[in-house]
């Protein structure tokens, strides 16, 4: 029968190109954001985080941009590699809720060799 599930946004990029994955968050009171990578059969893995007092944060080959005005978060991956193929989630944490995180639906990234 037909499988029904979340319609994950998908992104296909050529190996070596840069990838940009976007996330719109819902709560203007959220002040801490994390990007996670989930490979098939594994748990989500922390990539990079950013607090609301920053607009940009860089890691190794990854950059997160935060636009609080439009409640938008993006993850940029430089020189995308086949090992970057995975589902990427953004998670938001609302101020004064402790560590309670809410996850978006995720974006499936496929890197074409």
């Amino acid at each position, binding site marked *: 029968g037909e*499988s*029904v*599930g*979340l319609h994950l946004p998908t992104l296909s990029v050529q190996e070596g190109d840069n990838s940009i994955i976007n996330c719109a968050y819902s709560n203007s009171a959220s002040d*801490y954001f*994390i990007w*996670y990578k989930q490979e098939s059969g*594994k*748990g*989500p*893995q*922390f990539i990079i*985080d950013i607090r609301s007092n920053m607009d940009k944060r860089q890691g190794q080959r990854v950059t997160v941009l935060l636009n609080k005005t439009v409640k938008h978060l993006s993850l940029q991956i430089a020189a995308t590699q086949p090992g970057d193929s995975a589902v990427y*989630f953004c*998670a938001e944490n609302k101020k004064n809720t*402790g*560590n*309670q*995180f*809410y*996850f*978006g*639906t*995720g974006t499936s990234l496929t890197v074409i060799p």
Partner: protein
Amino acid sequence: DARVTQTPRHKVTEMGQEVTMRCQPILGHNTVFWYRQTMMQGLELLAYFRNRAPLDDSGMPKDRFSAEMPDATLATLKIQPSEPRDSAVYFCASAPDRGSAFFGQGTRLTVV
């Protein structure tokens, strides 16, 4: 190498049976989460604990699900009785105070 450990990795059980999933959080992390992941709903927060005290379990069906932390090194999620709609991957995660959550590998539960 600090990691969150979940057992079992896979569980197949018959409808009506009790299922217990276990999690060992990272030593020193004071917050523990239980998430459920399905194709239909994505990642849902079921419950979380801070310093072993349950802070929020509003995402959890109370009639059949229960979550506990008997001590700082063990968190459990129990389903009794289990139903086919409980089939999912259940993730445990732990975090330090106001820090990012680190996930275990998950328990893939199939209820037939």
